[in-house]
């Protein structure tokens, strides 16, 4: 029997989304990313969003692939094809498919009649049965089911079989047995679909040339690369989802690029020495302590963590701020508060990081929107931290950090010289009459520091207790205030050193839309869609805090301003209001904080509803 899949006469090329529903721990992730990677290799803009549980095996997990020839690859909420591989979630998954869409399911067992929808085409593939027939080992039978459905999808979407087959061969280059069984499974599904359905479906892929200079990379890998290229040598960290892969990757990269060969190693000695030291700490408090100790000593040091880790680090962040020690913190945000939803995304650490620690503190924040910016901003974080002698937070999130993104290839300028800030060496000290740690401020209100080990003339006593500009203990109001007032000015001065906001204006715009981080693509797409509804909007994505003047101006220029962000409390809006003095009422909010990546539909709905209201 052949199911006719051509009833929809509208053929859509390179513009659709599919959702794959699986059980976690069954090996579906590699099959899913195989499909995404193949589409990328065909030159088509694509994204893959892994919506996974905080669990190792047995719970529902989903993967969404969005293909969009214009590059709008934010999460779509409507699915043309559902690959329903988890019987436990059949009902909700089948309900998720848009009218006129398709459901691919394992027809080894019949589908309950009550699950059927008349507006959806069901494509049954007897995956389990085929795999039992073709594979002997129990684990293989489970794993190969994934590759088999991938094969069916390859046929249904018109994905280039050669590209997929090559990818499998590359992945299993060193294991002939696995390579063969994967290829066989792929072919099983592919052939079955060709034989039983009209392939391809009305929505399909066709080769493009849009990803030639792009790479497929996750933000955590890109961040680790940034830290490597910035010259970080010391890191302290504690394992936490979704940040762990930053340090896993940094460790891997260091092992590859930071080993110096040892000539004639002694017996038992390794033939290399490490130009780095990564310490898995006992907790995040120790992790930031290690970073501060190393930064105090003049090494570039960083930690990677998520919200709960930042909470623990608060105490020492105040110390770093007040004693003026550089530090780089990578916060891969997840859904809070408390344990929250560790495998879901959010942008809810903005205020936590902006004002981390007790007392009057303010920090420098960078907001990357994608893995490419993770790479670039990670490098800049070190420059800014050392220039301003203070902690710098790069706020990534789970969506950016753990999903693969298509981004322009990373580039590096070999003339880059790290900005180590104002550090006095013994030669400088010799020329000075006397050294005082917190005196002699420059135009950015930064004072010179010395490193431990420098001449005794440059020795001073770092103290988190009240100190005057000479670094001496004080309890006198004027002396105390003089120092903290300078810190405030120093922070403000960093505004022009953080990445500038991206502002895109449209003629006739009456509305201003402000966003940050990983909301970027969804909001840009929303701006396009709003335009079609006759709502013309200017766009601003802030990329750093403290804010430059243009942030305030943008708000004031627009009668209607919307701040789109992924947290409940409109934290970016608050921060803009608090720090620029713009009345908070001047900005409305569009908030999506359920834990999944933002989609343009949510933005469009949020804005149109409020404009109509």
């Amino acid at each position, binding site marked *: 029997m052949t199911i006719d899949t051509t009833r929809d006469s509208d053929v859509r090329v390179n513009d659709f989304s599919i959702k794959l529903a699986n059980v976690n721990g069954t090996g579906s992730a590699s099959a899913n990313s195989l499909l995404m990677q193949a589409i990328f*290799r065909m030159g088509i803009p694509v994204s893959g969003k892994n919506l996974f549980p905080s669990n190792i095996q047995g719970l529902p997990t989903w993967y969404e692939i969005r293909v969009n020839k214009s590059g709008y690859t934010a999460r779509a909420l409507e699915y043309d094809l559902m690959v329903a591989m988890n019987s436990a979630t059949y009902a909700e998954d089948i309900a998720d498919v848009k009218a006129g869409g398709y459901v691919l399911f394992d027809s080894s067992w019949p589908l309950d009649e009550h699950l059927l929808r008349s507006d959806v085409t069901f494509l049954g593939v007897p995956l389990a049965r085929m795999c039992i027939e073709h594979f002997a080992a129990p684990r293989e039978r489970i794993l190969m089911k994934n590759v088999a459905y991938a094969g069916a999808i390859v046929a249904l979407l018109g994905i280039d079989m050669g590209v997929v087959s090559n990818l499998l061969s590359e992945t299993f280059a060193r294991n002939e047995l696995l390579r063969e069984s994967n290829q066989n499974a792929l072919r099983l599904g592919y052939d079955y679909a060709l034989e039983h359905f009209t392939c391809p479906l009305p929505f399909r892929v066709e080769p493009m040339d849009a990803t030639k200079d792009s*790479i*497929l*990379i996750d933000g955590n890998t890109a961040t680790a690369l940034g830290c*490597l*290229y910035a*010259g*970080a*040598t*010391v890191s*302290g960290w504690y394992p936490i989802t979704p940040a762990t892969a930053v340090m896993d990757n940094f460790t891997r990269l260091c092992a590859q*690029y*930071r080993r110096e060969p040892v000539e004639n190693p002694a017996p038992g000695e*390794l033939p*290399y*020495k*490490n*130009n*780095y*030291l990564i*310490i898995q*700490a*006992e*907790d995040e*408090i*120790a992790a*930031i*302590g*290690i*970073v*501060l*100790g*190393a930064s*105090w*000593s*003049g*090494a570039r*040091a960083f930690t990677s963590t998520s919200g709960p880790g930042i909470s623990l680090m608060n*105490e*020492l962040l105040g*110390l770093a701020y007040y004693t003026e020690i550089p530090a780089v913190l990578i916060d891969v945000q997840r859904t809070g508060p408390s344990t929250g939803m560790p495998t879901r995304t959010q942008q809810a650490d903005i205020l936590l990081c902006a004002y981390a620690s007790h007392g009057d503190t303010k920090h420098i924040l960078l907001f990357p929107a994608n893995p490419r910016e993770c790479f670039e901003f990670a490098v800049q974080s070190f420059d800014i931290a050392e220039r301003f002698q203070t902690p710098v937070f790069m706020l990534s999130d789970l969506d950016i950090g753990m999903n693969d993104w298509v981004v322009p*290839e*990373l*580039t*590096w*300028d*070999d003339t880059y010289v790290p900005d180590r800030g104002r550090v006095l060496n013994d030669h400088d000290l010799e020329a000075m009459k006397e050294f005082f740690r917190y005196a002699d401020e420059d135009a950015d209100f930064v004072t010179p520091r*010395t*490193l*431990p*080990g420098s001449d*005794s003339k440059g*020795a*001073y*006593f*770092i*103290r*988190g*207790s009240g100190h005057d500009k000479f670094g001496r*203990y004080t309890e006198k109001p004027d002396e105390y205030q003089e120092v903290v007032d300078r810190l405030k000015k120093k922070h403000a001065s960093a505004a022009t050193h953080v990445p500038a906001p991206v502002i895109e204006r449209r003629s006739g715009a009456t509305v201003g839309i402000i966003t940050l981080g990983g909301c970027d693509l969804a909001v840009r797409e929303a701006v396009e869609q709003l335009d079609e509804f006759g709502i013309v909007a200017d766009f601003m994505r802030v990329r750093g805090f403290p804010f430059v003047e243009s942030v305030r101006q943008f708000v004031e220029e627009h009668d209607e301003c919307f701040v789109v962000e992924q947290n409940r409390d409109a934290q970016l809006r608050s921060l803009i209001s608090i720090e620029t003095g713009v009345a908070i009422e001047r900005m409305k909010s569009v908030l999506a904080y359920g834990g999944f990546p933002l989609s343009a539909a949510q933005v469009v709905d949020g804005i149109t509803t409020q404009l109509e209201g």
Partner: protein
Amino acid sequence: MTSIAKPLIPLAPLAKNELGLTIRDYEGAISTLCAGCGHDSVTAAITHAYWELAMPPHTIAKLSGIGCSSKTPTYFIRGAHGFNSAHGRMVTIATGANAANRELSYIGISGDGDSLSIGLGHLAHAIRRNVNMVYIIENNGVYGLTKGQFSASADIGSRLKKGDPNTMAPIDPILLGLSMGATFLARGFSGDKAQLVPILKAAAAHKGLALIDVISPCVTFNDHEGSTKSYRFMREHEVKEIETDFVPIRKEIHKSLDENDATEITMHDGSIVRFRSVPSGYDPYDRQSVEEYIRERRSRGEIATGLLYVDETAPDVHELNNTTAQPLNRVAYDKLCPGAGELADMQRHFR
């Protein structure tokens, strides 16, 4: 942490060390601790030990947490770089500093509140990592700066000034260190500088974390009848059966006085620690023997002092991590950055 600059009054010619520095050069500001505080004696011993070691002050980094003990780095070696950090976190900072610059000599000053309560986890893990540093716990069994609460080192039955007895088991940093794999463990008494100075020198020469628990009475809150951390209690219950000498590398090494009993350990820097006497059956290289000895003495209400355990062969944090000999803060940037070509090349794997 108020401190008063110490007037540098030239007295009768003071002895000079090999660097031509006098003991004054290893002092700091005048202490603002209570008169008679045990911690001031520890400060004096540190001053003396580092002067005798003739260690250039700028090559020393002194760190502390929060508490009475943690004030003391201001009072010694003014030419050293100092870091008064947060409560209980001293060793995390020291770990990072040591990671970045393995050439400096690190001395951390902590107290029993700092190390055995709020910072216990950090202490345990610094021991496991064997961070190369001297770690001194100025142990008085009491929170002084907040006016006299029990700390975790208070013995059962020991009484607060207002009379309440402690009912919880004490944490003994030496026994803790033994179980965490510490490589240098010593206990001293602030009232015994003659014993403490050679221990400090040996600790500075040790490769790895040298933990010294110094019973250092709090004259204000814990020096009364009923306290087990008082001067009187220590004078009456201290057992000094283990005696060591420290022979610096630069001095000519004489043959040991008593060939039968003396055991010598060559430290990492070539200096020598010589056990002049140990009780029979005691083996300072054997954790079990040391633990049994301490427990046995404790059961008799006695406190054993001296250099109790040493293992000079264990790898320190850098050896465990195979770090390059050059301090990481001095590795040239061009050695750290793989460059544009490599970045382009590696991205072939991201397609």
